[in-house]
């Protein structure tokens, strides 16, 4: 039934009566308002439509909202801002074409942008094409070759030539009188850790030395790092009593070390200097007025003493240091470096040539020898094809006795001179220019040209490394080459062309492991950093595994599966004190300890502090595997008995198996997991119900609400992690020492199969008190002179095996 509509007009029976006339001013006012709103509407449309929706039909295109280029150009900016406001990602631009990106200008701009975050070495581009690169210590460094070269690098480091770029070490130049520097470094170091910085053998400037640095006056705690240093040779022409010293700092601890040096020598940054206002105002009556001078650009960070007695300059990106390891590096160096002739330093050049004629770098007349060498541009010395440098035909003058007669000026080099270094970089012939010149002037392709005689020569410093003193005698010996900036790539390519095998950071570790030493001790800054990094990585990997592939450390009774808890280990082995742990570096104590362990004829030195850690070397005899973070334990009488029986029957089974503990958390983990799942399910059901309810009253389709359980899931994950891992060793006493059925007195830090020993070898640290107990038990058993054995167990296994234990004196040597 149609409803009856009411009429408004009075003539048709409604209530409204229309006026017979309209006043014009009223009408005009109304029209004015209408026009205003129309104009406003036209200027700022309040429509909810997007721009591409407002287009007429014939201008619309498919997927217009995604591709702004399908819109007319005048709408594009508005469209982008609309999409951005709506919460959608503003439409990403297409990556520019490769051709555009590779244009030199754009490429260089991109390189500069990428170097802002991590600094690059000079050889970065070369490495980035061939190596896995990692971020370490503020640099982007090559880790290992993309090829499989692990064993090849070992062979290279032994008998061929391994080449590594270690320019990331920062060089710091100290200038001052010898007495002042000596006194300062005495505060930073101790004479118990071997030779000091002003030892006679180093001050003469022909040998590179190394010194252990500690925070000011905190020896034996507060270790910073072991630093290599070299003194500039004293010459007559120089300012009297001012000596120059270069320190090579590891980047992990460089800043901390510079800070310590600044505080010891009371240095202030030269960037901001406070100067007296004027000369006239120096009468005593008036208070002195000062002004501050600030340098806008400082090429090298400089710190000076108040009386200008000591100056410290950080030579960043000023020097390149390449490391060559292996017997064949003699040949590689001899082939790549040609002495510049004629030269003022004829004796020096002849001596360098004779030294490089020797069979192997370990035969160099003096260990850690520094040689200056003025050579022609290394680009002129390249072979046509990459080839292995062969022994030259020159008769070897290799009589070591003849080489004993060193010329006085052997370590001299213009590389020490800042002006020369700067000039070298400016006058260097660029690769492009060099190729152009060759194109113009070469007569026979591949032969030398006339202009090559005039290419500027460059000074180098060669530093010998003697290699290891134990195990494989002389392994790891080689030369370090220090070159001025900008010449890094030229030199690097020449070495590679002569058959040197490039290696990365991994090779530093593997060479150290083969030599049985450790690069960064656990109490140094770099050691702590690296340990923290490794711990995080192991933990991450553990929880990435599915639960049935994780080993249960509670059952294995391992307290700290990812990191060695040095602090708690030392706490459990001493009576009462709470100082930080430290590694024993006293050379006399270490020497007598070594004799004690080796022969058993010297008594245990009583002065060894009970709470120090002692570096040891481990070797497994028959079977078994050893990984980093393995436990070092004390054997019991039962183990010795068992070992004797096993030796008799030639039985290679493990000497003891850790009885697996029951895991009390297993049930709780299951309950927590189920509870969590149930909770999530309940929450989802609630959201579904909510959605259905809304759908009933709504005409449009309703979507389910977002879950927003991320916080909940994260909390659950953390709870589960806590239930998976054993309780923190910091919480209870004796939790580390008596964590399993054998007493723990040390941890392994680096381990693996050693090619040079053909055995599984490792480096670890033990507590002195534990070692004393082990030695006492050896004497009690009546075989005082026998090799010292201890038990080792990997963190993820139940198996205990015997390993040979040796005291390592390598903490006192320069890092390999």
């Amino acid at each position: 039934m149609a409803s009856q509509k009411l009429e408004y007009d009075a003539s048709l029976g409604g209530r409204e009566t229309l006026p017979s006339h309209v006043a014009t001013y009223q009408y005009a006012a109304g029209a004015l308002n209408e026009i205003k709103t129309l104009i406003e509407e036209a200027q700022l449309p309040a429509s909810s439509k997007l721009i591409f929706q407002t287009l007429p039909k014939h201008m619309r295109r498919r997927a217009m909202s995604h591709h702004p280029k399908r819109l007319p150009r005048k709408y594009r900016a508005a469209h982008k801002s609309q999409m951005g406001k709506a919460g959608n990602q503003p439409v990403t631009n297409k990556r520019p074409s490769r051709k555009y990106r590779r244009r030199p200008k754009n490429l260089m701009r991109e390189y500069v942008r990428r170097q802002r975050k991590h600094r690059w070495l000079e050889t970065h581009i070369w490495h980035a094409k061939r190596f896995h690169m990692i971020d370490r210590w503020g640099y982007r460094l090559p880790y290992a070759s993309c090829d499989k070269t692990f064993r090849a690098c070992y062979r290279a480091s032994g008998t061929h030539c391994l080449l590594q770029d270690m320019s990331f070490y920062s060089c710091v130049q100290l200038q001052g009188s010898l007495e002042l520097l000596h006194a300062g470094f005495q505060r930073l170091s101790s004479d118990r850790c071997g030779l000091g910085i002003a030892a006679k053998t180093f001050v003469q400037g022909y040998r590179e030395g190394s010194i252990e640095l500690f925070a000011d006056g905190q020896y034996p705690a507060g270790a910073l790092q072991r630093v290599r240093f070299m003194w500039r040779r004293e010459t007559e022409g120089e300012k009297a009593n001012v000596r120059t010293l270069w320190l090579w700092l590891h980047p992990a601890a460089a800043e901390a070390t510079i800070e310590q040096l600044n505080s010891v020598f009371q240095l202030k940054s030269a960037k901001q200097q406070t100067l007296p206002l004027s000369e006239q105002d120096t009468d005593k009556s008036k208070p002195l007025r000062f002004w501050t001078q600030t340098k806008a650009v400082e090429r090298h960070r400089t710190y000076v003493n108040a009386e200008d007695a000591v100056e410290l300059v950080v030579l960043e990106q000023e020097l390149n240091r390449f490391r060559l390891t292996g017997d064949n590096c003699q040949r590689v160096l001899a082939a790549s470096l040609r002495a510049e002739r004629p030269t003022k330093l004829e004796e020096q050049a002849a001596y360098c040539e004779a030294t490089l004629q020797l069979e192997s770098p370990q035969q160099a007349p003096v260990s850690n020898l520094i040689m200056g060498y003025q050579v022609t541009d290394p680009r002129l010395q390249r072979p046509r094809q990459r080839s292995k440098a062969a022994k030259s035909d020159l008769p070897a003058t290799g009589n070591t006795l003849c080489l004993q007669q060193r010329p006085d000026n052997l370590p001299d080099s213009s590389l020490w001179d800042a002006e020369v270094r700067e000039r070298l970089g400016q006058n260097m012939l660029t690769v492009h220019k060099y190729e152009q010149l060759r194109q113009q002037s070469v007569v026979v392709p591949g032969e030398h040209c006339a202009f090559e005689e005039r290419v500027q020569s460059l000074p180098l410093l060669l530093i010998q490394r003697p290699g290891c003193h134990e195990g494989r005698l002389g392994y790891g010996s080689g030369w370090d080459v220090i070159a001025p900036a900008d010449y890094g790539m030229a030199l690097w390519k020449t070495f590679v062309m002569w058959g040197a095998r490039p290696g990365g950071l991994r090779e530093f570790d593997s060479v150290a492991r083969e030599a049985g030493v450790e690069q960064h001790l656990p109490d140094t800054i770099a050691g702590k950093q690296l340990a923290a990094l490794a711990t995080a990585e192991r933990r991450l990997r553990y929880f990435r595994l599915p639960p049935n592939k994780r080993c249960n450390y509670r059952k294995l009774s391992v307290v700290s599966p990812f990191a060695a808890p040095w602090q708690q280990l030392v706490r459990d082995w001493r009576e009462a004190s709470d100082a930080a742990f430290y590694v024993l570096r006293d050379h006399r104590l270490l020497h007598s300890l070594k004799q004690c362990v080796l022969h058993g004829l010297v008594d245990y030195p009583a002065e060894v502090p009970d709470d120090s850690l002692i570096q040891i070397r481990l070797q497994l005899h028959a079977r078994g595997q050893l990984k980093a973070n393995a436990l070092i334990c004390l054997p019991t009488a039962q183990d010795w008995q068992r070992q004797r029986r096993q030796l008799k029957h030639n039985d290679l089974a493990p000497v003891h198996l850790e009885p697996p503990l029951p895991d009390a958390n297993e049930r709780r983990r299951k309950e927590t997991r189920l509870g969590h799942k149930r909770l999530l399910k309940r929450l989802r059901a609630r959201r579904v119900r909510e959605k259905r309810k809304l759908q009933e009253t709504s005409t449009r389709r309703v979507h389910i609400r977002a879950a927003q359980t991320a916080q909940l899931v994260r909390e659950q994950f953390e709870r589960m992690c806590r239930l998976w891992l054993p309780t923190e060793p910091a919480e209870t006493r004796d939790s580390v020492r008596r964590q399993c059925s054998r007493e723990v007195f040390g941890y392994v830090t680096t381990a693996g199969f050693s090619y040079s020993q053909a055995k599984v070898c490792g480096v670890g640290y033990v507590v002195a008190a534990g070692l004393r107990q082990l030695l006492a038990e050896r004497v009690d058993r009546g075989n005082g002179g026998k090799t010292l054995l201890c038990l080792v167990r990997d963190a993820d296994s139940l198996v205990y095996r015997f390993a040979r234990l040796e005291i390592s004196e390598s903490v006192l040597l320069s890092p390999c």
Partner: protein
Amino acid sequence: MMDNSNPTIERGAKPRNNNRRNYNPQRANPNHRVVRKQPPRAAATDNRHNIYITSKTDFRAQQKRCEDLLNSGAKEIYLHCMGYSITRGLNLALRLIQNSEGALSYVINTSTIKLLDELHPLCDEDDLTFRQRNNSALHIKIYNSSLFDIVVPQLPVPANLPAHDQHQPKTKQQTHRKQQQQQQKQRQQK
């Protein structure tokens, strides 16, 4: 211009006392010095027939290396041994000759090798010094003395794969396996 401050060369006994019973910590390290020994160097003409004996390598491995060399046609090999490894070298030579049943003979030479040790100071005031010492060495030549040692000239190796037939129709992009199969078939037919 020679360096006057050069370290002096001093003469001395062997650096390490192997006799444990007479071990005396004071005597072993009288000047408080760390000794760095330079490893003995190989001869300039280094080739496979010179074998340097160490006491660390497994005896049987050394023996096998020598036997392999001799079996592969080497007329003579030289064993060089020094100091502690002299007994090892003698044992090895005798074992080789014993096992050869009269095919091998030997000649022995003795010599003295000059070695130079670096003595590192333990206090700042001292400089590096060197110590020259001598070590006895033994050079054993083992050679094939067999009368029936006939050198067999090496025959040229016949080419094992037949050349491609000219008649064979050329197919596009033959895989390696197909080629092999065809070659096998051809061989069977022949």
